[in-house]
């Protein structure tokens, strides 16, 4: 494989290669790296060399490099939000289609069909696709597509699971139930170095921000039906 040489200290040359990565600051050292918090998770930045066929090579952006570039974290973040989907487009699909069928990307104009289950938000390569969480405009777009508020389950660094709140209500599932599910899935199916969080988050269309999901009365309502 031929890897193109790039000058890391020249920001103009590498800026189109800078991508976001969402990590858990409790398990990943971020103090020597420029970072931006999304609630209690952190967005860090990589210079991506290549990302094909399930193999990815990258270098981390650290504070020293940022200093050499002479740009702010805000500028780095804004730039990375643009270049990230250009290098590896975001994908939103039904989880059942990912498992059994032919998944379509609802972010590319395919009509959304509520499959009655969860959705997967990631990228085309399914590598570090949980970084879609860093892009609040994408979170808003997803909520607009599903026309609902949503629970966000970032169990793995590679994808988010999205559960429309209407579906959660139908299943009688609240944040505590989902959190118990996430803990089991993480413990049994997700490699330790790929785990992102055992928590469940939510996105509310009115507040337009990601927050840790709070137990609501939705479960109570479901039980009363």
């Amino acid at each position, binding site marked *: 494989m031929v890897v193109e040489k790039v000058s890391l200290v020249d920001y103009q040359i590498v800026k189109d290669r800078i991508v976001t990565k969402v990590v858990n600051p409790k398990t990943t050292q971020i103090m020597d790296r420029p970072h931006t918090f999304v609630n209690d998770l952190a967005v860090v930045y990589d210079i991506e060399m290549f990302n094909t066929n*399930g*193999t*990815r090579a990258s270098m981390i952006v650290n504070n020293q490099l940022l200093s050499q570039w002479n740009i702010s974290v805000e500028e780095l973040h804004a730039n990375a939000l643009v270049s990230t989907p250009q290098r590896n487009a975001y994908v939103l699909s039904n*989880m*059942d289609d*990912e*498992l059994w069928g032919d998944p379509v990307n609802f972010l590319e104009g395919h009509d959304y069909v509520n499959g009655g*289950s*969860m959705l*997967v938000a990631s990228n085309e*390569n*399914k*590598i570090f696709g949980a970084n879609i969480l860093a892009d609040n405009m994408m979170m808003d777009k997803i909520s607009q597509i599903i026309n609902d508020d949503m629970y966000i389950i970032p*169990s*793995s660094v*590679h*994808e988010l*699971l999205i*559960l429309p709140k209407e579906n959660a209500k*139908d*299943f*009688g*599932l609240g944040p505590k*139930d989902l959190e118990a*599910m996430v803990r*089991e*899935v993480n413990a*049994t*199916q*997700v*490699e330790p170095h*790929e785990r992102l969080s055992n928590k469940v988050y939510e996105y509310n269309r009115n507040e337009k921000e990601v927050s840790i999901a709070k137990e609501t009365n939705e479960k109570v309502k*479901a*039980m*009363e*039906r």
Partner: protein
Amino acid sequence: MSDKRKTELAEAAANQKERMLAYYNAMKKKVVRK
């Protein structure tokens, strides 16, 4: 809440968990992540 409703909800929750487990298990085999 009726016993029928309790059973329905328990089955729905179990079904969602099974799908999540299946998804992550499938992804481990489908994608080599380095």
